[in-house]
Each structure stands twice: as C-alpha cells, then as structure tokens.
C-alpha cells in the first residue's frame, strides 16, 4: 500500500459519459503511483467505459482525466506514452509472431530497437512464451494470446497499466503468470488499475478496491475499510467475517434499497 504522500498516477474528476443513458455519471477517482487498484461492479456499471476513457479510446462528455500531472484530454499523446491498455479480448494480429508483434508495438511507443528486443525476450521468458516466439499467433490459445497482449503492454514499461478483465478465460497457470507479472510491475513502482469479476483476485492483489454502480463510485478503500462501510455483514446478513463477495453484494444492495 502506498503512503498518502505518493504522487497521483491517475485522477478522475466529475467524469461523465452518456450513451442512451448515463454510463459514467460524475465519477471521481484517484489512484496513487505504485498502487494496485481494483475496480469492481456489476455488468453495465460503467467500469469498461471508465477505463476506455482513461486509455483515450473514448472521449468523456464532461470531467477531467489527469495521468501523472498530464491533462489527458488536452494532451492525449503525452498521456498515452505513460499508459498501456489491455482488454479482455487480446488485441493482437494473427499473422504476426509474438516477437514481430512486440517489434510493432515498440515501434508505436518509440522504444529503441536494442532495448525493445532485450525487453521482448525478457517478457516472453517471464510469460513462458519463448518457445513460441517465432510462431504466428493464429494458432495460439486464449491464454497465450492474452500473454502476448500483456507483453505488448509492458514492452514500453508503462507507468500506468489499465486492464479490463485481463484474467477472463485464462487457465490457472496462465492467470498466475499474468498476476505475477503485474505484481512485479507494482513492486517496481508501476501503477495498475484493473477491473475483474473474480473477487478473489481483487481481494488478494489489490491495495485498494473501488466499487462502482450505475456509473458512480459507491465505495472505496482497502478490504477492511469496505467491510466497515458495508457494516461487516456476511452473506446471511449477520455481522461476522464477511468475504469480499459478501461485502461487494452488501454495498451494491444499499444504493438499490435507497433507490
């Protein structure tokens, strides 16, 4: 957990995005450098829309996004230099090999060839893809594709990594490799903001957890703080050792009851 004095890696203020209805509705959120932040919420809560706005893939209707002191809406290119985006659907090219893909991505982020090649070989090694480095991605499993995408996201050593459900569909081994790489990035001072439906992952990995519902931040804090906010109730509704699942469901139930 990062001290409160750590600089902000990401700051969202009054973020709004409407489609047919408000998807994100005045969202305020701050994540400190070196923090692992998990964003939880039910389907349609606005998690992906929020992350896509941060990554510069959607333009908000109102509000501001600051990435390490850069106004991401005024200077998106400067902000994108510091970030990497990974969605649940791996963004790779079937006809390229992992090494060629990493060469392309490093070209987009302007990483020098020698450095990029060294990092590429390290990343492929960490992710257990060295044996497949020269094979076209078209025959890869979902897990392998996601690992190639993750290597692409890390090749330019981003300060902020944004992940939307990165573990969906991965087997236990691949999921562990991805989690280890992310932990290592945080240990080295990187910041990770991730959405997930696997509450256990958030519980084990995140320094802080934000719960979002109907486009608004409902609750935020460490697991303990969230338990307190939810009144420490477990699944049966009685006070006890509530899991994150109990806490999550209790937090979501409150606004619905209030409505």
């Amino acid at each position, binding site marked *: 957990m990062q001290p409160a004095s750590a600089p902000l890696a990401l700051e969202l203020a009054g973020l709004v995005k409407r489609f047919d209805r408000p998807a994100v509705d005045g969202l305020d959120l701050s994540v400190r450098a070196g923090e692992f932040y998990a964003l939880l919420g039910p389907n349609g809560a606005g998690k992906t829309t929020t992350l896509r706005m941060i990554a510069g893939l959607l333009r908000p209707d109102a509000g501001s996004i600051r990435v390490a002191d850069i106004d991401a809406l005024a200077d998106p290119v400067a902000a994108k230099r510091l970030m990497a985006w990974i969605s649940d659907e791996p963004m790779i090219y079937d006809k390229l090999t992992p090494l060629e893909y990493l060469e*392309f991505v490093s070209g*987009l982020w302007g990483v020098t060839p020698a450095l990029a090649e060294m990092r590429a070989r390290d990343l492929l090694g960490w992710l257990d893809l060295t044996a497949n480095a020269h*094979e076209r991605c078209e*025959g890869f499993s979902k897990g392998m594709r996601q690992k190639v995408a993750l290597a692409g996201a890390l090749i330019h050593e981003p300060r902020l990594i944004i992940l939307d459900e990165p573990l969906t569909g991965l087997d236990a081994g691949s999921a562990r490799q991805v989690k280890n790489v992310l932990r290592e990035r945080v240990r080295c001072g990187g910041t990770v903001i991730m959405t997930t439906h696997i509450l256990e992952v958030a519980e084990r990995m995140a320094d802080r957890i934000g719960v979002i519902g109907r486009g608004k931040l409902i609750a935020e804090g460490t697991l303990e703080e969230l338990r307190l906010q939810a009144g420490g109730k477990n699944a049966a509704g009685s006070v006890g050792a509530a899991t994150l699942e109990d806490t999550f469901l209790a937090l979501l139930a409150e606004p619905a009851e209030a409505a």
Partner: protein
Amino acid sequence: MIAQPGTAVWFARHEWRLAWRDWIGMMSGGKRKRLHRVIAAVALFVVFMHFVAYWMIGRFAGTAPDQATFAAVTASVLMSWLLMVSQAMESTTRALYARSDLDLILASPVAAENVFAVRIVTVAASLALMALPLAAPFIDILIARGGWRWLGAYALIVAMGAAATALAVALSVVLFRVVGPKRTRFVAQVLAAVIGAAFVIGLQVAAILSSGSISRTSLLQSQTFLARLPDAASLAWWPARAALGDLTALAGVLALSLALLLATIVLVAPRFGEYAIVASGLQAGVVVQRRARSFHRRTQQQALRVKEWMLLWRDPWLVSQTLMQMLYLIPPAVLLWRSFDDGHGAYQLLVLVPVLVMAAGQLAGGLAWLAISGEDAPDLVASAPIPPRFVVRAKIEAVLGLVAAVFAPLVVALAFVSPWHALITGLGIVVAATAATSIQLWFRTQAKRSQFRRRQVSSRLATFAEAFSSIGWAATAAVAAASLPLAIVPGVLAFLVVAGTWLMSPRQPHA
C-alpha cells in the same frame, strides 16, 4: 406441414430460413428503412438493365441460329457458368471450413449427410437466384423481341447452377484429398478466382495475339476461328441451343445437370461430415517465421506501414480476394507487350488507359478497406501515443505504396511506347486510387479483416460510389488520352460523384 426433425426437408427449412435472414441482413445492414431503399434500388436497376439489354442485344433476338450465333451464345453461357463455378467453390469451401453451427449439427444424433445434401442444393439454388436478376433483363428482351423460345434461357440458368455446384463440390473434394485439408481452403479460393476470370481473360489474350484487339468478340467472329468449330449438329452446341429455345436440347442439358448434382450429393454428402471434422481439427497455424535479424529502427508511421504490408502478404485468403482484380491486368499487359513488337500500337493503347485506371481504383478501394477499417487491433493503435491523423496517414501511404508498386512497372513500360498515354495513365491511377481510398476513409468502420468479403455490407453507398468513381476516372483518362477536351465531362462527373459521396458520408470525429 411440419417436417420430421432431422430429415432433409426439416434441414432445408432451417437452412433456407437462415439464408434468407442472412441475405436480408446483408442487404439492409439491420435497418428496415435501408431494406426498402435497397429493394427500390434493385428494382430501378433491373428496369434500367432492360434498356441496356434492349440496346445491346435487342437486334439479335430474331437471329437465325447459325454457327456464329451458337459460338457467341456458347461463349456467354460458358463465361457465366465459370463465374458460377467460381462462386460455388467459394460457398463449398465455406461449408467445409466455417464452423458456425457445424459443431452443433455434427455433435447431434442426426444424419449429417442430410444437412450437407441440403447445403449443396442451397448452393445451387442461390447461384441460380443470384444470376436471375442479372440475366432476366436480357432474357426478357429476347422473349419480347424474339418470341417464347427464349424462355428456355431461364431453365438453362437453373441447369447451369446445378452443374456449376456439382463441379465445384467435386473439385473441392479432389483438392481435399490431393493437397490435404490444410491447403485446400487457400488453393480452392485461388482456383475460384482464376476460374472466374480465366475465360474472359483467355479470350482477350487470344484476341490480342490473333488480331491485335483486346475485344473478345473479334476472336469469336473471325472466320479462322469459326472454320475450326464443330458443325451445327454437334452436341457441343446443346447449351446454346437450349438457350435459344430448342426444347430437346434444353431437356437434355437440364437432365444432365440435375443428374450430375444428384450424383454429387449421393457420392459426396455422406463423406462431407468427415471432411468437415478433419477441417475443424486443423491447428489454425503453427507457422514458424524463422529469422535471425534484430528489431528495426522505425518511426511510428513506418511501423504501421510495415505492419500493413506484412499482414497483407501473409494472408493468402486476402491475396486471393484481390487476385481477381489483378488477373484482369493480364490482357492489357499482353497488349502492351505486343505493342512493343509492332511499334505502332498507339491507337490500340487507348484501351489500356481506362483498364489500368479502373483496376487501380478497385485495388486501392479493397486495400484501403483492409488497412483503414479492417484493423484487428483497433484499441492497440488507438491507445498508442500517436495522433489519429498520423495513423490514418500511415495507412493511406501503405495502400498507395502498394498500388504504386503494382502499377508503376506497367506505366513505365507504357512510357517507352507512348509517353503521353503513360502520363495520362499515371495521373488517372493516382486520382482513381486517391478517390477510392478517400471514400473508404470517409465511410470507415470497425471490422475484422476476415470480414473483407462482406465489406460492402457496412455501406452500400461507399461501394457504389467507389465503383462509379473508378469508372468515371477511367472514362476521363480514356478520353483525355485521345487528346479530347471532352474529357472534362466525365472528369466533372467523376468529381461530382466523389464530392457527393463526401457530403453524404458520416462525419468522423477523429479524422
């Protein structure tokens, strides 16, 4: 009547319902209003084609069937039939390799041969149905001008669809056994492109070599050619006789075609399930790209351009899709080569100019869709620290670079024969390719490269605009090459097509 589940009739209802909804979806893009507009446009097109047909063939309706008529009709029938075979091969390959509902059907306890028999019949039926709107205006005019005997041409279309499907299925199965399931898809698609274009191109090349003209009719009408043909009583003319209303010939051709289709179904359908299972078991690609080289130093735009070229080069399916357009460049190339020989082909070269300009426009349109709309990792590119306009610029450069690489050798060769024609052709290629690329840019959408075959679905307007723009610039170049000030007329029309398309295009926020 409700058919027993699992029977061929039951599957036929299921397949045709899906095919119908698929067709409606393709025509309307999911919008009911658009469907009405498409129906109105097709109706207008069919009416317009009746006038075209009247102008083109009205005077031949009463022609007495002689050897020259048989030759001309046979050539038309053969050309159309080969196009049908090409289309049928596409459909058959898809039936083998596209998974969609095959896993469900093959895992169910029903006889798989029923579904494959229905699918083969569906291919034949859809071929005939697709050919009808194109052929109907010509047949109607012939009926109106020459009498009911021409009605047989409609039945001939059904026979052609059946025979084309039988041949395509047989060819696909032979390929599956000879080259193996892994290569069949690619080989079949290339073969389909070659078959579709081969006859027209063959006739044009033969005409150029024999008479120095690119017109295929010149060969069919030449006395030398006619003298070598079988006599009028030959069975070889039965398809032509069938088209001309000879009921005996029609019955014979129809019976033979349907028998071929039936035999194919009986022989092949029971094995098709096994082939489909083998095809589904293929490892999509353990293709190893061995290389010793290191990473290259590239700017962001260079990285994007190289990526586009690499993806295109490595996708044989996309190459086969563009191959058709490239094949049509063979006759102009032969004409050019022949002009070197006789040294005075400047007048004939006039015909080269529009062909090259038109081909450049069409090629650029296809490539532009792939590069601009067919981006498989749109989020990756959009999240990279590069302004969107640079991304678009790099992709346009990739497209125009490829067009230049294909056409520059032909223009340079043309410059040795006639610098004036080369200049006009070069300018025409630049303008046509730029216009086609611009149209794809204005109507860009987000799609997978694998959706290339159905790219017209996203915007019919862009598809038609691209075609009319290419035709307009080709006409402008042709007239300009003859040094006629009249070139301004098609030039202005082509410009209006492009400008009108721009006005009607959806505004892109990050252009």
